[in-house]
């Protein structure tokens, strides 16, 4: 794992130095001294990332163990499916928030997550899914004066 991590860091560094910094960091043409340029710091960080990646590769090759290992879980395939489901849930939450409003979206996200992880207390999950976003709405909208997105459908006082 250490070697792969190191290779990943080197690839990131190469990408930064060759593509990302020249294209996505702009610098005025009249900067006289390179150390004052907006490009200087990202280049330094890119180079250091490459060096650390190299260090990880070399230390990974030198040590026999190959780095720390993650604790295994009973069913990794089901875990991966749940992770994918959660990623979809996050994207859906982000997309739905401006249209449905934060309160309703949070309620749906709460229920979806609780059922995604197969809660043993479905009734409590549904009650919490309704109550928690409403309490948070009351606090942030009426105490902290935050303009919580209301959405296009049902508006709260």
């Amino acid at each position, binding site marked *: 794992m250490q070697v792969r991590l190191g290779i990943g860091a080197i690839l990131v560094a190469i990408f930064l130095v060759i593509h990302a910094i020249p294209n996505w960091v702009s610098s005025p043409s009249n900067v006289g001294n390179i150390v004052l340029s907006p490009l200087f710091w990202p280049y330094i960080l890119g180079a250091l990332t490459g060096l650390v990646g190299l260090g990880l590769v070399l230390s990974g090759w030198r040590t026999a163990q190959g780095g720390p290992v993650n604790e295994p879980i009973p069913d990794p395939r089901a875990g991966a499916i749940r992770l994918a489901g959660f990623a979809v849930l996050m994207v859906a939450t982000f997309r739905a928030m401006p249209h449905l409003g934060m309160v309703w979206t949070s309620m749906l996200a709460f229920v979806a997550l*609780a059922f995604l992880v197969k809660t043993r207390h479905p009734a409590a999950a549904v009650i919490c899914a309704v109550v928690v976003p409403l309490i948070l709405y009351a606090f942030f909208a009426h105490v902290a004066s935050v303009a919580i997105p209301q959405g296009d459908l049902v508006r709260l006082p």
Partner: protein
Amino acid sequence: MSLIDSVMAGLSLVGNWEAFLSLAIGIVIGVVGGAIPGISATMAVALALPFTFPMEAINGILLLLGVYKGGIFGGSIPAILIKTPGTPASSATILDGHPMAERGEAGRALGMTLWASCTADFVSNLALIFFAGFLASFALSFGPPEFFALILFSLTIIAGVSGESLLRGALSALLGLLLATIGLDLVYGTNRFTFGDPNLMGGLNFIAVLIGLFAIPEVINMVWHPTGHVGKVQKLGSKWVTFAEYKRCFRSIIRGSFIGVFLGSIPGIGAAPAAFLSYSEARRKSPNKANFGKGEIEGVAASEAGNNGVAGATLIPLLALGVPGDVITAIIIGAFMVHGLQPGPMMFVLNVDIIYGLFIGLILSSGILFVVGGLAIRGFRPVADIPKRILMPMVLVLCIYGVFAVNNNIFDVGVMFVMGWIGFVMGRLHIPPAPFLIAFILGPLLEDNFRQAMLMSGGSPDILLRGPITWFFWALTVISIVAITRGTLRAGRAKG
């Protein structure tokens, strides 16, 4: 302003029930948060942060400091009762605390935890009061080259001590520094990695990054392994700690408190190493050293004194220099920023009332912790029984509201989600998140001071070595890099 005037100004800020209540609520939240495995003190502080937005600055900061102190103590409760540290700082407490719980002496162990924690917390707060002002007055003479050298030193310490591997810690810090470059350039105002999106021009929202990095990965971990948290809760038992036992352990508690104060005042070291060092020193000096690891109450006292001794001392570099002492104080910087305050030596000049208000509040916090902690020990079982598969959806919803509330911007919620996945992947790759966050905070300061120094000198690097203060920090930087590298090489050789 004289000392008496400063104290009176501080008292005028905290001499009211709102401040007292904020501190007490913070300690309760911290103890409960620290006591729930999976909700560490760090996460509790991060989640509480958005709720401080509508509060007065002093009350908001006191609430977060209460969460911090309560969280460090609260972490010891599950460490003793279910052999799962609520926070990494409580790892050393397991060594003797859990064997005591297995013997039916959990109440005695937790009682000693409470007494040692409050004593160490008090010592740490006194150290903060005595040293922060002195250090700040010294730091008032710092210019950009001195701050650059100081921040560089802080970064080397952080990269070296916050993980199993120096290189992984360094990689984490570099990722944080890289992410901190997003936004408009500090000097010329040109775009850096903004892709023309106005949401990115001000840089990534600090609170979205920190909540994404510390709270969301716990939710994702629970999705990955929903039943990974189940543990057996031990009974408290009928035995309770006695004053004679406290007296017997007092020397270890005071030694541990000073170890905590010393390590806590060095940016980046944090509570867990202090707890282990305090524990090993107590074992070395104790006449009962053979009992250590088998349920020796002095071991519990020493480890708790070590980790709580850090809690006030980490605020020394934060308040005096503007450099966070550990990851939790890095989050507390967010509260200062939200209220338009910039921690550092100038705060001792411009906001001396807040500084002294915090000092007074912190002194009170040790007493409140004693009361709240005593109740929490008896009430742990219902806290431990909160189903995690309901708790984590709650955390998700809290995060969404909290992050949105910072700027009223849904984009920040997206940043938090992305950071959550980055934090999860970092966890799977054993890359520690703490250096990332601290580097993300220190990155702009490092670059800003470097470029200001270069502007002052017309581009000559000689200015970075312009006087004894910069020499001192450069020497410390070199020494720490050499020490960390030697330690890593030795550890590598020992592993074979």
